[in-house]
């Protein structure tokens, strides 16, 4: 398969970026999207040109490192999949593919397609944890947890913190990420102890870092590679508002 790639190139955070067009040829339909970029970079290196910088790590859809806004969609055209799980058979032979970095004020571009997502780490540090003694491992079944609660918690915990939610949201809102973290802990007895403080602290940090306000479009859940539901945003709203009303 042959493709024309329109890729955002930007030397560093301060430079002005622009799209550059490249051609890749004889790509197997079973090549992953990131492997296709590897082939492009290999060609560029052979031509003595600067390769395209992009984030990647596990290439198994669980680390949350890959990003990319491909043809107008976070993580490309597949639903419930990360960029590393996209294969070139999803595209038409001869297609022009536009590749952009996440666009959000809270995710500044570092270089080419790489953005700084440390804002998510800061939100997590504000409250996305439980305080427990770190000595011997407690018995896993010591605290009974209803199956439905455990399932819901696990659905929220599937969040890999990739940033697709804020990148997709027209408001640059990080609510789905924050909601997934708050919800996954709020549904478990171990997390309930600090639930009120956590919701308030994480929302405050999210606001402080300049993320936008949720307007309930649902675009985040449509583009989330882990298909996390906005029902978790409703739970975050409940947790936050009840915590504030108790103040």
């Amino acid at each position, binding site marked *: 398969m042959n493709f024309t790639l329109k890729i955002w190139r930007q030397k560093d955070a301060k430079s002005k970026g622009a799209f550059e067009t490249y051609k890749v040829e004889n790509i197997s339909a079973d090549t992953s999207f990131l492997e296709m970029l590897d082939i492009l970079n290999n060609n560029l290196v052979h031509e003595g040109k600067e390769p395209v910088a992009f984030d990647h790590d596990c290439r198994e859809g669980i680390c949350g490192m890959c990003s990319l806004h491909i043809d107008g969609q976070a993580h490309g055209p597949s639903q419930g999949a990360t960029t590393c799980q996209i294969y070139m058979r999803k595209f038409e032979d001869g297609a022009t593919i536009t590749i952009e970095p996440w666009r*959000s*004020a809270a995710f500044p571009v570092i270089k080419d397609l790489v953005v700084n997502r440390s804002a998510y780490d800061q939100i997590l540090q504000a409250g996305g944890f439980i305080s427990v003694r770190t000595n011997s491992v407690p018995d896993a079944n010591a605290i009974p947890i209803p199956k439905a609660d455990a399932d819901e918690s696990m659905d929220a915990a599937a969040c890999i913190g990739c940033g697709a939610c804020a990148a997709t949201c027209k408001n640059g809102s990080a609510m789905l990420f924050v909601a997934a973290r708050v919800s996954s802990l709020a549904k478990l007895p171990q997390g309930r102890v600090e639930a009120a403080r956590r919701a308030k602290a994480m*929302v405050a940090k999210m606001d402080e870092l300049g993320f936008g306000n949720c307007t*309930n479009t649902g675009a985040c859940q449509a583009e989330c590679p882990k298909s996390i539901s906005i029902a978790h945003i409703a739970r975050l709203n*409940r947790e936050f508002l009840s915590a504030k009303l108790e103040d």
Partner: protein
Amino acid sequence: MSCFLTKSSLGKKLVMSITGAFLVLFILFHMSMNLTAILSPDGYNAICRFLGANWYALAGTAVLALGVLVHFLYALMLTVDNYRARGKQRYAVTVTEPGVSWASKNMLVIGFIVLAGLLLHLFNFWAKMQLIEVLGGHASVVGGHTIAATDGAALIAYTFSKWYYVILYLLWFAALWFHLTHGVWSMFQTVGWANDTWYPRLKCIANVVATLVFLGFAAVVVVYFIKSCCPCCCGA
């Protein structure tokens, strides 16, 4: 608390949700009241006399105006925040994500159309009814006719005999329909009263409310326009 309602993103959304709920309830009341004008113009005028410039109607109008103002100002505040959060560099290519309604992405623009319609409505009706009474008058001259401030039915009959007002009002109701299809279910989400089981139900309720509001308001406009075109067949 006040700080949370003006500074926190979720606090600001809560204000939008509560003022929105209040305005939806008012719209449902107004629509029901308007339907009386179809069934009985005299009955409608009795309601107009009951409301008029009495203290309770003035207090209600003030609270309503405050509701509209707060809803509008908070919408602007939230939009400015969101515009900043999106960053200066925009995507070159965008798509509409599956399951995302057009209305949900254009609430501010639709809101401006609703507001423009509201201003026209205030000019057409409120200024010639309650405002006249507040200023000590009892009637106004509209299109060469003297219409009493409590004769709402005559004002409706005059306004919707004009085809351009019929079109403008129907466009206004259509904008309101779009606004409500997203706004009604969205206010439940914002206060946290929603989950995956209830999303289809809430969205259905939102569509039903929006459609009822549209049909209720549009019925008065269309019926009075038909009456003006064909007075003999409608008993006018």
